[in-house]
């Protein structure tokens, strides 16, 4: 804005093609925010071609004509960061949807702006540094009790820093100065940060702590690390959204950012109605208090969908800088990629594979690269974990969005239509899925769960893989043709699938399974396998082993919160049954 006088901040529209418009007679830089047309619709410069400034508009452009004015704000697309983010629901460009309902009713109209944070609300600021202290960019200078979460007020990342001249506690709006430095710099609680630029950190660390999700197949077989990246591709109705929402509910992150990107409005409503009633298993506080929602549903403007993902990850990075573990879900990154494709085709760019722009891979990796476990500028350790749903058309994983995503992320949870049709939930295919964090996380599981855990997991994976091989034989020659030992393997594999892997998201207890319970369940199945093995060595037939009754009681411990006495009893009964077999 403080550019030279000859700067032309007003131009005119020359062309309108859907969400992409061209202006002339305007000086602009890439990603400047502009106001388009008589209604001042918000847009962003995405291409400069000689005199032609090409802009993507975040609102519907119907009725806009060539010749209407375009004004450059000289600012880049940025979000407002400060107290008030938590529990909010925003559109793709951080307009609070709750405020928009007050301003324009139940439907979203255009040309209405609303700041991301309330500029009137007062927050109780408590300084954590004092007059005379030296502070630098990123340092924490005080706190605000935002919800049950403590919001840490930081020196903006690009500030020079210096010695504190004045700082005092009290009630402030986000715009009011809470701290003055010797050189006169005034610091308020509000920061703005351009969404397309990653916030700086001191150092990236190796992710070696798992993000515990309470979902057995994830924590048990294919864990994601805090600061890691994962993708959930799956055909229609296979459980992408349910899995994402389970992660948003139960993962042991301190802050959750949930981006509903081009999916159903009702799914956001579900989150809005459920989350305030659910308790964080760690803190006992309503889940909503740690959550920020971003909604660009399928019928909202497509350019804002492109932006929504950046808005979300910038908010996530801001909380990470305070030292929090943040997890970000994006449902669905395919809709985001389609938004890119639509804009790109309006730009008449050379289409790449399946019409996606050639920079699809670059954009996806830029996004996922913003995940990570870090030491922030102030020395706090925090992380952003990113979990993206992918909706490949026809469930075909060879399409460009899935393929490019898999090249970047380290965890692959492959949803499988066959499993969901059989109502095996979560319908994550245990043979195709993988986690590249396993080695890095072994030590944590060793220390925090049990030294037995890693061998147990390896054993379970081995049984499941063996089952897949045996199934092929069974299909050819029938199960009677299998050696005795392997008939039991098939039974044990069935137990792993039905007891451990299947988990009901809609059951009050089973929806979240603590790591200790996961361990006990797997150990119980292994114990059965061991007893069976010994019995067979002593001459028991597979039929005898499979007929053990007590093992059929095992699935129900999923639905019991204080399951230990019940599990104890089942295991005692099981041992007794095997003992009886031996004495016969």
């Amino acid at each position, binding site marked *: 804005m403080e550019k030279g006088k000859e700067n032309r901040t007003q131009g005119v529209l020359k062309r*309108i093609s859907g969400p992409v418009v061209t202006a002339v007679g305007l000086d602009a830089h890439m990603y400047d925010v502009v106001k388009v047309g008589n209604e001042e619709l918000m847009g962003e410069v995405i291409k400069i071609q000689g005199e032609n400034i090409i802009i993507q508009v975040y609102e519907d452009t119907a009725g806009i*004509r*060539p010749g209407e004015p375009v004004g450059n704000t000289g600012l880049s697309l940025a979000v407002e960061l400060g107290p008030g983010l938590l529990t909010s629901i925003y559109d793709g460009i951080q307009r609070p949807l709750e405020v928009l309902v007050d301003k324009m009713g*139940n439907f979203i109209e255009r040309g209405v702006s609303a700041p991301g944070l309330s500029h009137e609300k007062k927050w109780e600021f408590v300084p954590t540094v004092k007059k005379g202290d030296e502070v630098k960019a990123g340092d924490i200078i005080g706190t605000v009790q935002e919800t049950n979460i403590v919001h840490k007020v930081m020196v903006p990342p690009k500030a020079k820093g210096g010695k504190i001249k004045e700082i005092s506690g009290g009630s402030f709006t986000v715009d009011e100065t809470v701290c003055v430095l010797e050189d006169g710099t005034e610091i308020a609680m509000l920061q703005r940060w351009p969404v397309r630029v990653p916030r700086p950190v001191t150092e990236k660390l190796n992710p070696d702590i798992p993000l515990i999700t309470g979902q057995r197949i994830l924590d048990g077989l294919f864990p994601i690390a805090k600061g890691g990246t994962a993708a959930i591709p799956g055909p229609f109705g296979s459980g992408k959204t349910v899995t994402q929402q389970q992660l948003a509910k139960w993962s042991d992150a301190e802050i959750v950012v949930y981006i509903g990107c081009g999916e159903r409005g009702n799914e956001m409503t579900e989150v809005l109605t459920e989350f305030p009633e659910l308790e964080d298993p760690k803190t006992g506080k309503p889940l909503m208090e740690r959550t920020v929602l971003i909604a660009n549903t399928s019928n909202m403007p497509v350019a804002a969908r492109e932006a929504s993902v950046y808005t979300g990850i910038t908010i996530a990075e801001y909380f990470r800088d305070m030292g929090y573990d943040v997890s970000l879900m994006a449902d669905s990154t395919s809709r985001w990629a389609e938004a890119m494709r639509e804009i790109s085709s309006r730009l008449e760019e050379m289409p790449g594979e399946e019409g996606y722009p050639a920079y699809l891979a670059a954009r996806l990796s830029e996004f996922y690269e913003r995940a990570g476990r870090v030491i922030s500028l102030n020395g706090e350790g925090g992380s952003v974990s990113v979990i993206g749903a992918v909706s490949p058309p026809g469930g075909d994983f060879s399409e460009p969005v899935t393929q490019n995503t898999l090249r970047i992320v380290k965890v692959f949870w492959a949803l499988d*239509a066959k499993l969901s049709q059989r109502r095996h939930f979560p319908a994550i295919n245990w043979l195709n899925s993988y986690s590249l964090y396993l080695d890095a996380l072994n030590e944590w599981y060793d220390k925090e769960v049990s030294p037995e855990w890693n061998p147990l997991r390896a054993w379970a994976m081995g049984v499941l893989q063996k089952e897949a091989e045996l199934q092929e034989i069974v299909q050819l020659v029938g199960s009677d043709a299998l050696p005795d030992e392997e008939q039991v393997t098939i039974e044990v594999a069935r137990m792993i699938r039905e007891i451990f892997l299947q988990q009901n998201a809609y059951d009050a207890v089973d929806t979240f399974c603590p790591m200790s319970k996961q361990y006990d369940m797997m150990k119980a199945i292994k114990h059965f396998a061991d007893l069976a093995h010994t019995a067979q060595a002593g001459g028991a037939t597979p039929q005898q082993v499979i007929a053990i009754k007590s093992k059929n009681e095992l699935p129900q411990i999923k639905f019991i919160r204080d399951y230990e006495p019940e599990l104890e009893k089942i295991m005692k009964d099981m041992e007794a049954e095997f003992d009886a077999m031996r004495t016969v």
Partner: protein
Amino acid sequence: MKEYRTVAQIAGPLVFVEKTEPVGYSELVNIVTADGTVKRGQVLDTSDEIVVVQVFETTAGIGRDSGIRFTGETIKMPVGKDMLGRILSGGGKPIDGGPDIVPEKRLEITGAAINPYARSSPEDFIQTGISTIDGTNTLVRGQKLPIFSHRVCPTTTWRSRSPARQRCPARPKSSPWSSLRWASPGKRPTTSWPTSRRPALSSARSCS
């Protein structure tokens, strides 16, 4: 209303018009052909050089001599209680020989997005009287519902039958059905129905 006779090019459903005054994006366009027929279209791309119009019906009869009228309005439609019981064309005009609709409002046909914050969860069960829907693939008020079909599946009968029969039973406090879905289309079987045998109701899922 100004009429332009400056058609520069016609390609597929697209008509390119030059030397116009500023035309709004998405505006409704009337195209008058030599024999006086009026065809409708919509602006797909507009600039001070050329305007691209997508024609809703065939471009047969449109030529460089056709007259192009830009209406200055995006597509709106008159709506009102009067519409109940009437038969309308795809363009919203009565085709049952009755009088014009007296509009209470004129609404954009593209509609506006519902603010997700203003939505409430759909949870009212709609009874259709078709057992395979009510029993296992319950309909819920406010839900969107695709019916997937093969060429010979009788979907038209189904679609028209279900609104005619549907009823909302007394609203249960919290419906246990709300999480169920009508259709989770997987890979569709490639075989088509034997035409001689009408599929029984219970096989409807394989149509879905």
